[in-house]
């Protein structure tokens, strides 16, 4: 059957009337990059301990937990290290949206009144050169892989190439996105790439898939993030330094979207999962893109950040050229984007990557960003993760 174009009940998921407000009261991170001798799950435990300390809580205070990884095993085994408190610990396995789905679930558990304090954790540990997809795993014919057309990097290049032609985006602008990411990474203690890379080096580096050079892609990496979620009542009782979750929306692709691993696509072009998630998140939060003070946008490669600026409503298609030229997405710009260096500087441990964005927004809204702190006491923060086979998760936080 042809999939329905109606979104049906999906529109109602973000803000049921009965739900209470929910806050992030603790945030922990294991530095991203490569940590020899420490498993992905142990990095997760590290992040949980840090989040608990940040919230001033003990593991015994956590009433339920959601977590997962793409390639580093089940999250619930963490109870061996954290303590056998008997809490329900639900494993989440949702590809690139693993972290976002864990956070959405933890938030819903608190909002529905099921518990007052919940935890979301995501972690991963990918070897160098991971992400080697096989056709059978994706329901695709073998010839697609045999002929060399089944690479995620090709998809990103094909998407931005067309976008550049249609909307007048230059190669230099792609380079500026990467240059900004590495510059922000130098100021961020959880980033992997801590050295600046100049524009010429980025543009003249070996080509992976035209127009994207090797410095314009993020790499598989390791890392972990944990967030402690609490009801408003509990947050007040604890006197927590909390940040409100205004909305979270997770969406899968509508008909006619252009996604990775597609031997063919429909001539009838349709919507995008990011646009759906973004609109739902804004609507539930009751604010618009013009109200956002800082944003973390999925930047698997430079082109993704460019396109996601428009897909998330921050600018019109093509305006990114001017935005980058004027430095509007720099730390001191009108809308700082990827303040911790994003995926480009932090690498991409799939299960942790979406939660890293939320972690960074918590840091920024609390004013704890240090050298990378966005000026002017930001009040609203936006995060967006995107992944195969066409899904997006958006979270809007407010102080």
């Amino acid at each position: 059957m042809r999939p329905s174009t109606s979104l049906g009940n999906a529109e109602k998921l973000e803000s049921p009337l009965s739900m209470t407000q929910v806050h992030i009261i603790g945030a922990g991170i294991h530095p991203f990059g490569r940590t020899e001798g420490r498993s992905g799950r142990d990095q997760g435990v590290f992040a949980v301990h840090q989040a608990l300390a940040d919230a001033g809580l003990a593991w015994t205070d956590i009433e339920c937990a959601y977590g997962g990884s793409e390639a580093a095993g089940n999250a619930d085994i963490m109870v061996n290290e954290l303590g056998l408190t008997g809490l329900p610990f639900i494993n989440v396995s949702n590809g690139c949206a693993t972290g976002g789905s864990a956070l959405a679930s933890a938030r819903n558990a608190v909002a529905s009144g099921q518990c007052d304090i919940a935890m979301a954790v995501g972690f991963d540990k990918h070897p160098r050169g991971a992400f080697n997809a096989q056709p059978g795993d994706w329901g695709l014919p073998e010839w697609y892989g045999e002929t060399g057309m089944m690479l995620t990097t090709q998809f990103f290049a094909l998407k931005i190439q067309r976008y550049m032609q249609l909307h007048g985006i230059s190669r230099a602008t792609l380079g500026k996105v990467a240059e900004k990411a590495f510059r922000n990474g130098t100021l961020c203690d959880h980033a992997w790439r801590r050295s600046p890379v100049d524009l010429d080096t980025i543009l003249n580096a070996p080509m992976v898939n035209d127009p994207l050079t090797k410095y314009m892609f993020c790499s598989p990496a390791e890392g972990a993030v944990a967030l402690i979620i609490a009801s408003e009542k509990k947050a007040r009782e604890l006197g927590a330094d909390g940040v409100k979750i205004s909305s979270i929306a997770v969406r899968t692709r509508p008909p006619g979207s252009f996604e990775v691993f597609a031997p063919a696509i429909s001539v009838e072009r349709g919507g995008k999962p990011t646009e759906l998630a973004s609109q739902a998140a804004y609507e539930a939060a009751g604010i618009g893109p013009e109200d956002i003070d800082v944003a973390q946008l999925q930047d698997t490669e430079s082109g993704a950040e460019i396109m996601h600026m428009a897909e998330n409503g921050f600018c019109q298609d093509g305006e990114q050229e001017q935005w980058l030229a004027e430095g509007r997405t720099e730390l001191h710009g009108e809308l700082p984007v990827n303040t911790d260096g994003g995926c480009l500087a932090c690498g991409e441990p799939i299960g942790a990557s979406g939660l890293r964005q939320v972690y960074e927004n918590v840091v920024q809204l609390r004013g704890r960003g240090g050298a990378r702190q966005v000026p002017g006491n930001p009040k609203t923060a936006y995060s967006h993760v995107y992944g195969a086979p066409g899904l997006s998760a958006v979270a809007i936080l407010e102080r």
Partner: protein
Amino acid sequence: MSMPLPVAEGLWTDEAEPRLIGGRHMQTGEIVFPMPEGDAAQHYAPLPLSPTGTLWSWTSQDFRPKSPPYTGPEEFVPFLLGYVELPGEVIVETHIEGAVLSDLKLGMAMELVLIEFAPGRTTFAFRPSA
């Protein structure tokens, strides 16, 4: 020397000027490529697709893809690939032959050819129309 073998059966028609074989959904009329296999096939009727179209996007493959699944030559030669829109039918991902990067423009006319992508093995490609 034996004839090179297609990378898969049923991808294109066996005629002097081959055409890709897609599938037309029996209820909705939507055209897909390749023709679905297994249980999904019952909903589709095979349909030879237009051998000409226009360039929708493109990129280069500058390093050797991992094997498996790639079965191209060990001595890797970079290649071009992209999507070609077959008017009113479907947009197919394809190798691009007979062009260099600087030749390629959005919307340019393309035509189907068969290429030997690995010794003794053929696949489909599109090249700029003569």
